[in-house]
């Protein structure tokens, strides 16, 4: 049975995140303001004040506490949500790793922003890239509707009995956080219906007052190794699980996003451009234009960044002649884009073809259509044997 048509509101990415979180009926919500996600905290507080959000709201004194509160509430058996950005994520780093190690199925929205080092009140993906080895599931979305839909899907994924891992839902800070778009807000009962399967599964382990059960035992030697192994295999299961949840979401709400990756005109494509977040939207337009010029180019939007969608990417990229990857952050120590670096690791499976790394869109700089045209043109030329530059910092070459 299809979901009823939801109310359409023109709202910002931040407000969208708050709407989605509210409809998932969290038990405990924490918020600590930071640019550019503060509006999420404000909107959730407003929902709470208006009686729309029936949850424990904890106005913590810092992000570190925000994460500890939601992780502990989650281990106690509750549904928990928080949001942050950039330095906020850095400040909760110890708790972020503890949350995943404890298998606390928290959902956290992140309005991506550059991280400390150079003061930058501006968008970029360095924050989540810095957290890619924290054992969290990381999903990157493109527009406001996808923020809404993905937060709901994220709870299904996080709290799934086979997964039990925290999920970060990432959207471009500044661009999407403050951009108002028309968003279809699903009806409460339809969100309930979508989350219903979580109630049918076995109860996950939790803290029971008075019962001799500890959360956070001292895992030593083989005990530690076993837990790490189980964590890794749960991460692995999250890849296909996301595809399944995305498909189910599509069946109910009529919108789906390809699960781990979204492929656009990849089937017959000779070359592929890879992007994530809002840049994927721009890239889609440019791919259309280039197709009209006769260039067989396709687009892959990476949605799932952790766990890395290896199998899906290999299937989509095998046989392609060249790949251009656009990153909004850097990989220190490799001097290239992080997604590019990860794509390189797939070479043994997809064959050695020219792979080009483009660093663009850092610190609020736009990833423009001419930029993506350039990516496509150079990748196309590389596919035809022309020499190419491995890493290009687009803003520095303009």
């Amino acid at each position, binding site marked *: 049975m299809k979901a009823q048509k939801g109310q359409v509101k023109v709202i910002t990415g931040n407000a969208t995140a708050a709407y989605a979180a509210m409809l998932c009926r969290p038990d405990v919500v924490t918020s600590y303001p930071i640019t550019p996600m503060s509006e999420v905290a404000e909107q959730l507080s407003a929902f709470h004040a208006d009686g729309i959000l029936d949850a424990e709201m904890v106005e913590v004194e810092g992000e570190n506490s925000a994460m500890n509160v939601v992780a502990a509430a989650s281990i106690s058996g509750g549904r928990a949500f928080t949001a942050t950005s950039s330095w906020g994520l850095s400040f909760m780093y110890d708790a972020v790793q*503890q949350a995943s190690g404890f298998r606390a199925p928290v959902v956290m929205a992140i309005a991506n922003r550059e991280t400390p080092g150079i003061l930058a009140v501006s968008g970029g993906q360095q924050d989540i890239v810095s957290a890619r080895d924290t054992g969290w599931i990381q999903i990157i979305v493109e527009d406001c509707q996808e923020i809404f839909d993905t937060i709901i899907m994220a709870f299904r994924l996080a709290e799934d009995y086979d997964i039990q891992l925290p999920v970060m839902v990432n959207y471009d800070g500044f661009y999407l956080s403050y951009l108002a778009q028309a968003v279809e807000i699903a009806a409460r009962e339809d969100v309930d219906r979508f989350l219903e399967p979580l109630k049918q599964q076995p109860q996950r382990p939790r803290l029971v007052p008075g019962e001799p059960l500890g959360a956070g035992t001292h895992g030593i030697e083989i005990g530690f190794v076993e837990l790490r192994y189980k964590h890794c295999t749960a991460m692995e299961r999250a890849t296909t699980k996301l595809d399944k949840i995305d498909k189910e979401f599509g069946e109910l709400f009529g919108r789906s996003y390809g699960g781990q990756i979204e492929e656009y005109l990849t089937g017959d494509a000779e070359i592929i451009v890879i992007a994530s977040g809002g840049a994927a939207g721009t890239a889609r337009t440019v791919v259309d234009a280039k197709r009209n010029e006769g260039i067989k180019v396709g687009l892959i939007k990476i949605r799932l960044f952790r766990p890395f969608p290896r199998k899906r990417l290999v299937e989509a990229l095998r046989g392609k002649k060249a790949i251009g990857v656009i990153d909004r952050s850097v990989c220190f120590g490799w001097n290239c884009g992080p997604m590019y670096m990860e794509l390189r690791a797939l070479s043994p499976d997809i064959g050695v073809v020219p792979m080009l790394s483009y660093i663009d869109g850092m610190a609020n700089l736009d990833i423009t259509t001419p930029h993506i045209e350039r990516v496509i043109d150079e990748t196309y030329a590389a596919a035809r044997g022309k020499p190419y530059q491995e890493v290009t910092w687009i803003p520095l070459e303009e």
Partner: protein
Amino acid sequence: MAQQEKKKSRVFDYFCEKEDPYVGGVAWCAGCTLELAARFVPKVLGNDMVLVGCPGCSAPVFYGQNTGAWHRLSYFSCLMTGVASSATGISRYFRRIGKDVTVVCFTGDGCAADVGFQPLSGAAERNEHIIYICYDNEGYMNTGYQRSSTTPLGASTSTTPAGIASKGKPTPAKNMPLIMSLHGAAYVATATLSHLEDFAKKLLKAKEKKNEGFVYIHVFAPCNMGWRMESNSSIQVCRMAVRTNYFPLWEAENGKFRLTQETANPRPIQEFTRPIRKFAHLKEADIDKLQQMVDERYAFIKGLCAIGN
């Protein structure tokens, strides 16, 4: 016979008539006051609680190892930065589902006064329904006796060692219980292991007050190893801390201060410092400074107690 039973202290009841949630052979040092505190707290508060702790001297026993455990308590371990905040999450969730749960944080001073202070302060300000018990052994005793912000003036620790150019820690201890009481907490008290009856009363009060708001109990808990004192001297050191006014026993209920143990003729501070070798290097002038600090702090508490009366 009946009279004899009447005389029996409540501490006896707690110790001998309640089930011990700990197994034998726990990994604490001989003479450890933290062990006494850790055993005493659940006996008074009851086993139906969630204990929240972090790395420190309490951790090896509280955490257990892999699937092994030394106690039968419900336990949540987290990092030193996350104790009061994790307790908030636990307390809020159980409040949301309508379950009355006593959430007890049990950490050392390194967590409470230093690295975990921000969340502790935040939780107190939000008036979370948590009991936070800090066992103050005046430093990082678990990691090798380094100084913390509750290490007293002049104490020689592994990071403030006494030497030709050093007289130990150059600054006095952060006055944690006072700071916590000024947060407007529902109940704040100091306690120590030589005065178990007093400690028990305060724990019972804590349990009563925790449904109104934040409770903080600061327990003076000497460390035989770190302070370099005999393992059979710990309770006597606790007693002398009270009798010298080095560690006055007081409580503040809804901001109203009261001394729970008045010392008629306070002993000179040397009687407290003498058996503790972390003070052994101090000269008379240094001891005088310590005495001055003790007198000032005691006068301050006395003054606060006078306000309400």
